[in-house]
């Protein structure tokens, strides 16, 4: 070998003996935690699997008003149900977690009107109920007139439930979308006052 193999280093402790004292503590002084600033309301997309939070305190039978033009759902406060009349619809509000978007969502599942059979509503409720135990997705079949329910062929990770209370989730989801009095713009509009 045409190089000089002489080691010119002084005798001293190995680098492995010295180095540990130099380790710099990594203080993660600033952390990132997601603030749930928005919760979508409505049926999950046909591409998405979802789970329903199975806890009893995570669902509620209530009334909502759906503005189909603006594609907004309003929570109707109990004192406004009579005022809203047939505009308000009874729903079962459930908390879903969708995959792969990993988003928490509020789904007001409509309850049947006057006990009449409605395959759309029945299959939607079936899907929400089934999703308490396993991942499902619901795909509308317009020709057949109901939602087809699918399960994934493989395993999906467990849902990541928020640690917020149901009330907090509702507050976030329906922020600015709660009808509490006669002078609410939606009520006035429905009454032809604006």
């Amino acid at each position, binding site marked *: 070998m045409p190089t000089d193999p002489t*080691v010119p280093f*002084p005798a001293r402790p190995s*680098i492995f003996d010295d180095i540990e004292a130099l380790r710099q503590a990594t203080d993660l002084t600033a952390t990132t935690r997601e603030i749930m600033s928005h919760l979508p309301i409505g049926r999950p997309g046909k591409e998405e699997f979802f789970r329903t939070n199975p806890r009893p305190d995570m669902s509620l039978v209530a009334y909502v008003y759906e503005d189909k033009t603006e594609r907004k759902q309003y929570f109707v406060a109990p004192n406004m149900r009579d005022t809203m009349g047939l505009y308000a619809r009874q729903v079962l509000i459930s908390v879903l977690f969708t995959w792969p*978007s990993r988003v928490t969502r509020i789904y007001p599942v409509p309850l049947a009107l006057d006990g009449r059979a409605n395959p759309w509503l029945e299959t939607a409720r079936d899907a929400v109920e089934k999703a308490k135990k396993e991942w499902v997705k619901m795909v509308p079949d317009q020709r057949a007139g109901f939602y087809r329910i699918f399960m994934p062929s493989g395993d999906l990770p467990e849902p990541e439930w928020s640690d917020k209370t149901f009330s907090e989730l509702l507050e976030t989801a329906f922020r600015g979308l709660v009808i509490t009095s006669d002078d609410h713009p939606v009520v006035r509009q429905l009454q032809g006052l604006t």
Partner: protein
Amino acid sequence: MIEKLQRFREVWNVDFEFGSDSNLHPIPVCMVARELFTRREIRAWKDELQAMFRAPFDVGPEALLVTYNAVAELSCFLALRWPFPHNALDLYVEHRLQTNAFLPKNQNNLLAALAMRGLAHIDASEKTSMRQLIMSRTSWSPAEQKAILDYCATDVDAGEALLPVMLPSIDLPAALYRARYMAAVACMEHIGVPVDAPLYRRMTSDWERLKLALIRDVDVNYGVYEEKHFRTNRFADYLARQNINDWPVKSGNLVLDRDTFRSQAQIRPQLEQLRQLRTTLNELRLTDLRIGADGRNRCSLFPFWTATGRNQPPPTQFIFGPARWCRGLIRPPEGYGLAYVDWSAQEFAIMAGLSGDEQLIKAYENSDPYMQFARDTKLAPPNATKHSHPEIRNACKRVLLGVPYGMTPQGLAMAVKIPLADAREIYARHRATYRRFWLWADDRLTTAQFSGEIHSEFGWKQLGTSGTESGALKNFPAQANGAEMMRIAAIAATEAGIEVCCPVHDAFLIAAPLDRLEADVTHMRDLMTRAGRTVSGLNVRTDAVIVCHPARFMDDAGAPMWNRVMKLLNGLTQAAA
């Protein structure tokens, strides 16, 4: 200042002037050393230096050598066969650290370091003319000798001026460790990479004809060249013939840069030979490789040159820099072997170890971490292997390696040519499976953005991170700690007497006589594993590829092009005969 240095009995500011021999080793011309406390000065001309068996000042445990770019001074120590100093402080490295991220790279020289601190310095043109005087001659008149020594002393003056200004911000124990690495760099630069020098000379003498022959040979399969020129319209026709209709376009034009070709060739292997040809023609200036008369490639490794503290040797001068097929020139001398020892999935190990994510650690500890990820996330069944699920493995590998860089599902979909929905699925599974890692990565990023700096485990840091692109910040922990791992291993290996030829990103090339090769490889791998454990807390695995004379080193990806070049070269030689 004195308080910080009081553990040392003597502090010597030292500078050498030197030329270069045919092997590209330095030839010391003179040296000036001045002791900080007593102002004692030693000036020595080359004859005096050659007569000394050791430095003419204390280099023991109670003394400190201060210099600007210690590799130069320690290379002179090696040329003079002087024992290395026990302690060194390199103001170049500390300047790099103190200014990392907010200075262009060319502002790392001594004059720039002085200027930015408002310190007096000699004129740059005067420095250049003195360097020319030193480099261009082998003998000097007495007056020139005095002028050169005086010039050498100005660099010592500079070191003395910089030291008190920089010292308050210097973490001295960490700085001594960094300078210890500079000693390892001096050793690696001194040893160099053995190449097949006769073949290299043949290739360089026939290089222009060889390039034309190469174009003709490779272009048969593409039809995109006209003489020596790559024609974009012909390439567009080729893409149409191949039904490739999603080649990246910018402002209506095909994007033809190096990175685009590389990423396209990864998903379309039929483009690989064309990519290598373009790299060879556009970037390879074979005569720029620095090959000494002893058949060794030696160039500056530019330690600490990147923002993450990695080396950055000039790609045109360094044998591992140009097109991969050129690595076929690397060949051990007679009686010797070479080993290319690299860490397996080094960056993966760092992220797993430092985040403490047990699932990620488990994945790394599996012999195939990418397949383990696929199994962990249930993208593949428990009995899946890389042979049964190669596409899933490839996508998982991209995710695991891309996540530290902030890879998005869209980026993954493009990189592995899978539907966006599939990419989203894989990405979501990564986030759901390795939650602790994500929490750690997000917190590191936020801390860096709030505090304005981010650092490695052993103190290399990047400043001004408040405005830094988050992709670069996400990449910092893997790269900067990878560099720490390299430094620790390089120090350990060179100090253990292993002949380390060079570092190559996450690998080393080492040399040894055949009767010692196996033992040295085992020793090197052990040291690298220890270095990996020191940085990441995990036993980072290594792989070794061994080549014994007369075989040559060969990069798998470069082998087809190497064989092609050799065939053409032999054809040219025979035609000439």
